C-alpha cells in the first residue's frame, strides 16, 4: 500500500514540477520542451531496441514523415491554425504508422542484423528523397505557419503539447509492457525461434511494435516541426546524425529494456548536452560516437541496469512494474 502511495506521490511531483517549469524559468521553455522530445525519442526507440532486441537506426524516418505531413496539411488545408495543427498531427502520426506497417511487413520478417542495417539506409534514403522533392520544398525546406498567439506564447504552448505527449507515451508503453504484448516482445528478444515455435506471430508483433513507435514519433515530429518553425530535410526532419543517433544513445545510456531507463537516459543526456556541449566546440559529434562505443562496450547495462545490479533490493519498488526488465539477467 505504501508503495502505491509512494508511486502516486512520485508521479505527482514530476507532473507538478513539469507543469510549473515554463512559468518558473520562461527563458528555457524551448530547451525544456526538447527534454520531453528526448524522452519520447528514447522511449520509442526502446520499444524495438530494448524490449525486442532489434536495433533500429532509422526511427528518425517516422519523425520526419510526421513533420512533413503536418507541415503540408498546415500549408494546404486552408483551415485555421489550431484545427490545421491538430489535423496535421493526427495525419502525420497516421502516415508514419502506414510507413512503419509497409516497411515493417517487408523487413521485420528478417532477423535483427538485417533489420538494423536496412533501417540505417532507410533514414538516409528518406532525407535524400525529401531534399530532392519540390512539392515539400526540396533542399530549401519548409516553413511552418506563424503562431497566432502573443509573443512567447508559442514556446509555452508547444512545451505543454510536448509534455502532454510524453506523459501519454509513458503510461501507454507501461501498459503495453505489462501485458501479453510486452511478454511477446521480450520472448522475441530472448529467443526468436523458440518464440515462433511457441505460436507467437513474431512478424506481426514486431510490426505492431514498430507501428506504435512510429505513431508517437510521427506526433512528435509534427510538434517539433512547428516548435522549430523551419523544416530542413537533412538537419531537422531526417536528422540522422543528431536526433537519430541521440535516440540510440539515450536509451542505452539509461538502460535499454527497462521502462525508466530511457527516461533517465534522456534527462541525463539532455541536461549534460545543454550544460556542457557548448564547451566542446564542434567536437560534440566526435564525443557522441565515442560515448556510444564506451557505453556499449564497457557499460552495456546502462545507468538503471547497473544500479539494479548494484542494489537489487533497493530497486524492488521502482522496477516492480517492469517484469520485462528482469528477463535480461
Amino acid at each position, binding site marked *: 500500500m505504501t508503495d502505491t502511495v509512494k508511486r502516486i506521490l512520485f508521479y505527482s511531483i514530476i507532473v507538478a514540477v513539469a507543469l510549473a517549469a515554463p512559468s518558473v524559468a520562461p527563458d528555457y521553455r524551448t530547451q525544456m520542451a526538447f527534454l520531453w522530445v528526448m524522452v519520447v525519442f528514447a522511449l520509442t526507440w526502446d520499444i524495438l531496441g530494448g524490449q525486442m532486441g532489434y*536495433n533500429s537506426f532509422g526511427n528518425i524516418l517516422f519523425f520526419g514523415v510526421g513533420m512533413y505531413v503536418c507541415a503540408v496539411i498546415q500549408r494546404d488545408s486552408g483551415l485555421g491554425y489550431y484545427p490545421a495543427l491538430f489535423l496535421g498531427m493526427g495525419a502525420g502520426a497516421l502516415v508514419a504508422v502506414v510507413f512503419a506497417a509497409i516497411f515493417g511487413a*517487408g523487413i521485420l520478417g528478417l532477423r535483427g542484423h538485417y533489420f538494423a542495417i536496412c533501417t540505417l539506409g532507410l533514414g538516409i534514403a528518406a532525407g535524400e528523397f525529401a531534399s530532392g522533392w519540390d512539392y515539400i520544398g526540396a533542399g530549401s525546406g519548409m516553413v511552418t505557419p506563424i503562431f497566432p498567439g502573443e509573443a512567447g506564447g508559442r514556446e509555452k504552448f508547444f512545451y505543454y503539447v510536448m509534455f502532454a505527449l510524453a506523459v501519454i507515451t509513458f503510461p501507454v508503453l507501461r501498459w503495453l509492457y505489462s501485458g501479453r504484448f510486452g511478454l511477446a516482445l521480450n520472448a522475441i528478444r530472448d529467443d526468436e525461434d523458440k518464440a515462433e*515455435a511457441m505460436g507467437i506471430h513474431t512478424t506481426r508483433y514486431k510490426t505492431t511494435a514498430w507501428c506504435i513507435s512510429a505513431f508517437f514519433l510521427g506526433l512528435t515530429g509534427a510538434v517539433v516541426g512547428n516548435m522549430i518553425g523551419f523544416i530542413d530535410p537533412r538537419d531537422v526532419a531526417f536528422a540522422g546524425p543528431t536526433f537519430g543517433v541521440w535516440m540510440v544513445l539515450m536509451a542505452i545510456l539509461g538502460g535499454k529494456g527497462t521502462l525508466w531507463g530511457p527516461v533517465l537516459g534522456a534527462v541525463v543526456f539532455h541536461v549534460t548536452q545543454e550544460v556542457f556541449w557548448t564547451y566542446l566546440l564542434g567536437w560534440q559529434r*566526435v564525443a557522441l*560516437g565515442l560515448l556510444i*562505443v564506451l557505453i556499449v*562496450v564497457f557499460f552495456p547495462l546502462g545507468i538503471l541496469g547497473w544500479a539494479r545490479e548494484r542494489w537489487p533490493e533497493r530497486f524492488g519498488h521502482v522496477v516492480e512494474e517492469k517484469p520485462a526488465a528482469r528477463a535480461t539477467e
Partner: protein
Amino acid sequence: MPVSKTGRGDFSTMDSIQLLFQAPVLSVQLLLDGMLIGAIFALAAYGMALVWGVMNVINIAQGEFVMLGGYVAFFLYAAGVHPFFGIPLAAVVLFLFGWSLYKTIIFRIVDKDLFISILATFGLSILLQQLANELFGADVRTAESGFGTLVLFDGQVTVAEIKLVAFIAALALGGLLLLFLKQSRLGQAIRATAQNARAARIMGIDTDRVYAATFGLNAAICGAAGALVAMTWIIHPYLGLPYTIRSFMIVIVAGLGNVAAVLVAGLGLGAAENFAGFIFGAEYQAAFVFGLLVIILMWRRFWLNRQRRYLK
C-alpha cells in the same frame, strides 16, 4: 561518391530513358564506368564478408576504413608522392589501425551477440567520420594521378585510364588476398577459425590472434580500396556510410565466402548505380543506393518465406 559524368539533373526521367535508346553507345559508357567502380565496391564487400564470416561481426565502420584509406593516399599525394604508392601505404596504415582497434575495442564484442557488435561499430563509424571531419575538414578532396583518358568507338566512349588502372589494381588485390587465404599459414588459420572457432582453438590456433589479423586485414583491404577511390573519384569525411551499405548489399546478395559472386554483384551494383544516376539524376544516386538496399532486403524476405520448409 561516384557521379556519372553524363548524369544531369535538368533532364526528366523519361527524357533520359529515351536518350539511352536513341544513343546505345551511351549505355556502353555508363556500363563501363559503373563496372570499373564496381570492382572497388567488391573489394570492400569482400572485407566485410571476411569479418562477418570469421568473427561474426557486421562492421558498420567498414566505409570509414575506406574513407581513412582515401585520406592516407590524399596526404601522400599532398606531400608530393605519386598517389599510386598510397595503395600499399594505406593498406599498411589501415592494417595497423584495424589491429589496434581490435586490441582495444573489438575483442570485447567478438563473442557477444550481433546486436552489441552492430551498436559498437555504429558508434565507431560515427566517431571516425566526425573525427575525420574535425581533423581533415569537410572539403572534398582528390588525389590527381596524372593519367590520361582512353578514347573508344570513335570518341563516343571515354574511359579515364586511372579507372582502368584502379579496376585492375582492385582485381589484383582481391586475387592476392585469395592467394593469401588459401596458401599462407595464417590464411589457413583464418579459414579454419571461420569454419569452427572452437575446433580451431582445440587444434592449437590462437583465435584471438586470428581475429586481430582478420580485422586488420579487412581494414587493409578497405584502406587500399579507399586509396583507389581517392585517385579515381573524390573523398570526404562522410563517404563512409554508402560504402558500408554497398558492401552489406553485395554480401547479402552474393553470400558469405563466394568470391566470384561478390565480384559479379559488385560490378552489377556499380553499373546499376551509374544507370540510376543517369536516369533519375545524379542527386538521387545516393537515395538509389539506400533504396535498393531496402528493396533487396524485402525481396529477400519474401524469397526466403517461399523457401521456408521447416523451423531451424
